[in-house]
């Protein structure tokens, strides 16, 4: 259980009118907690406070009931005694040490329960890098080593601050897969800072949504991304719904995977997960088409039935329609003209069309 309840004020150049303050309260016992928000929303300040790099003005921080910081009782544990690993955005490997020395730098802490070097090296695929100098590594290699270095220091929690920010797209999905393996195989808890909906919806069990230093929500990932009132913060353009589904079967001829959820079945591009495993699928509102009759002879693979629960009209051309299938809700973003012509109202029965190839494959990941 990670519990944070802190306040901190920053005054910019002594000018109180431009002051920025953080007042954040949340707690979670999820395996991966995401701190999600725009840049400047206070995400990094909060993880820095958990690590002890930033001292809050007031409040408490505890992990599994152990107080790391408590302003009322004068508790402020030193950075090195908190037992918290940190993977920084820039990696921050020690440039004068080679990869192996970097990995083992923190391994002296709590030696007894520490992971063996060989296991971490194998999992992260950095065997061939061990004798290389840190500055000679590429961005993706640096982040692998940085994750390994944090793991080997035997932390209670690992903080990751935008660990993919400096990587290209291909490296990002590699590292995302590694983080999932770290979570599943090494059972390490992670606090993951990101402004990317794709990363957060794929990895996180719980999401803390932050805006201008305030916590807007702290809930499980599905609930947060399906909440209508949070949509301005969880992304207008990228907005959509998150559905947890079970892999039913793989079609090896057409490379498709069928999933079932309690509103029907979904056909998606084949992804490499075992049959029966739970996968989180993100459906962007702009990829969803609505029809009042069941269309025939169309290329769209997924045609589901549902009921309109809400119509939300932004000024202008677009209407956001919430539709319910079984217990699950989806968003569809359609033109206002279409909504009027179809005479959609709350309670209308509609067919929901989603192209199989529209699924954001990179955000699909095994969930808990």
């Amino acid at each position, binding site marked *: 259980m990670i519990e944070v309840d802190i306040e901190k004020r920053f005054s910019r150049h002594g000018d109180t009118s431009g002051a920025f303050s953080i007042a954040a309260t949340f707690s979670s016992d999820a395996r991966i907690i995401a701190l999600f928000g725009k840049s400047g929303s206070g995400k990094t300040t909060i993880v820095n406070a958990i*690590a*002890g*790099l930033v001292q809050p003005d007031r409040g408490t921080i505890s992990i599994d009931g152990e107080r790391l910081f408590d302003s009322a009782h004068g508790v402020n544990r*030193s*950075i*090195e*005694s*908190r*037992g*918290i*690993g*940190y993977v*920084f955005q*820039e990696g*921050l490997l*020690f*440039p*004068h040490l080679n990869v192996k020395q970097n990995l083992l*730098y*923190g391994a*002296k*802490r709590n030696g007894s329960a520490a992971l063996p070097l060989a296991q971490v090296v194998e999992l992260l695929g950095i065997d061939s890098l061990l004798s*290389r*100098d*840190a*500055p*000679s*590594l*590429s961005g993706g290699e640096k982040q692998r080593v940085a994750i390994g*270095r*944090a793991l080997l*220091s035997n932390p209670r929690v690992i903080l990751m601050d935008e660990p993919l920010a400096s990587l290209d797209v291909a490296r990002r999905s590699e590292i995302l897969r590694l983080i999932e393996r770290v979570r599943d195989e090494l059972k390490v808890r992670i606090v993951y800072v990101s402004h990317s909906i794709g990363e957060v919806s794929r990895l996180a069990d719980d999401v803390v949504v932050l805006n201008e230093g305030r916590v807007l929500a702290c809930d499980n990932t599905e609930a947060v991304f399906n909440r209508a009132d949070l949509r301005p913060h969880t992304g207008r353009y990228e907005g959509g719904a998150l559905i947890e589904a079970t892999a039913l079967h793989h079609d090896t001829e057409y490379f498709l995977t069928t999933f079932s959820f309690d509103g029907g079945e979904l056909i998606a591009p084949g992804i490499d997960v075992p049959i029966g495993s739970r996968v989180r699928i993100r459906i962007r509102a702009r990829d969803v088409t609505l029809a009042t009759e069941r269309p025939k002879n169309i290329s769209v693979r997924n045609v589901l039935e549902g009921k309109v629960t809400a119509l939300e009209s932004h000024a202008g051309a677009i209407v956001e329609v919430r539709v319910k299938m079984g217990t699950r809700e989806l968003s569809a973003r359609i033109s206002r003209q279409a909504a009027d012509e179809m005479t959609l109202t709350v309670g209308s029965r509609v067919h929901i069309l989603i192209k199989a190839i529209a699924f954001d494959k990179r955000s699909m990941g095994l969930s808990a």
Partner: protein
Amino acid sequence: MFSAAEIEIIALSLQVAAASVIVSAPLALACAYVLARSHFIGKSVFDAFVHLPLVLPPVVVGYALLLLFGTQGAIGSVLKDWFGITFAFRWTGAALAAAVMGFPLMVRAMRLSLEAVSPKLESAARTLGASRARVFATITLPLALPGVIVGVLLAFARSLGEFGATITFVSNIPGETQTLPLAIYGLTQTPGSDAAILRLCAISVALSLVALIASEWITRRAQARVQGGAKHSASARP
């Protein structure tokens, strides 16, 4: 090649310079670290005080040392009574004068290299369980080492040439306080010693050049060590 007198002068000069940097280096490193990493009220005053010997007339520094560290001086009398250490008119006094005069140079070079070490690297090390002391020993100091060595070598070269404060504080005693510059000065007072003066001048130039070239070489090598890997990988990739 050298006369016995010349060898005595060179040996004494090297001894004085070496003693001055060995004693002042740890103190300079501490001052440089404080100036590079901490913020406190009066830091600019402290900074100015450290740099004072750079701009004061050397004779003023020499006279101040005489007042403080002379056998009757506030510090000198205590050191003499309690520890039996005397500076006045001894080679140790010459080393002290050289150390004080070279101190700002040493602190400056060390401070610049310490400031170049990212505090974020130090934070990263601490999240890995390292105490402040271990972070300094294993991260900060190794990364700043080139600048630290350059600071020591610059101060060493400066010590070899120290004149004004030395002659004011410990006078010009052959075999005890007569370093190279003092010997040259002594000879200029004696008619017909041009050849001897030129020989000593040549030695002085040679020693200073060696120290400066060594510091340059160490800087280049250290830069290659830290950045070389990055350059190597950049060129290895298409």
